[in-house]
């Protein structure tokens, strides 16, 4: 007797073939927020995602937020780094220019740190969405 759950898994695997776009769109979307949608001609969605994520990241830096570096210490520091890395090219650019040192001179500096982390996490969601569009799971 056929196992329905195995059949279902086979069906879902068959529905998502690996195409060049299903690799390029998420990679580009991670590097440049919104670009994964723009490359698939979702102009409005891509532009809105780009503006939202970049603005959130830049506002976080402007609020004296702190950028997490790769670390093996406290679990919250590790998670902060994972969130920051989600912003892709923005994170690389920020580290290259040594921005985001997180001066504690402002009361809202901690908000800035959270803005930067959440911008990265939102970009992870945008990357997953770009992948779903690329494999035809979403219009």
């Amino acid at each position, binding site marked *: 007797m056929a196992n329905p759950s195995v059949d279902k898994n086979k069906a879902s695997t068959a529905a998502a073939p690996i195409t060049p776009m299903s690799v390029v769109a998420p990679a580009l979307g991670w590097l440049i927020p919104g670009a994964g949608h723009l490359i698939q001609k979702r102009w409005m969605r891509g532009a809105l995602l780009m503006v939202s994520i970049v603005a959130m990241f830049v506002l976080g830096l402007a609020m004296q937020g702190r950028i997490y570096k790769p670390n093996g210490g406290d679990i919250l520091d590790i998670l902060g780094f994972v969130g920051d890395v989600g912003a892709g090219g923005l994170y690389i650019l920020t580290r290259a220019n040594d921005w985001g040192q997180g001066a504690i001179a402002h009361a*809202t500096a901690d908000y800035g740190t959270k803005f930067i982390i959440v911008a990265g996490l939102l970009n992870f969601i945008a990357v*997953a969405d770009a992948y779903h569009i690329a494999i035809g799971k979403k219009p």
Partner: protein
Amino acid sequence: MSIELSHFSAAVLFAVFASVVFGITQRNTSREMIRYGLYCFAMFVGGVILAGWVMWILRR
């Protein structure tokens, strides 16, 4: 460049950007995206106002 926002304006800006991304990524049609984005924004800002009142009551 340095910006010092109030707690409320920071929360509203957070709500705007997060709602735009949630709306676009969690729904399939344009109409549903706008509706869900507005719903998320209302929930974020409503949650902030509610939390503010709860803290005000606790402080008294």
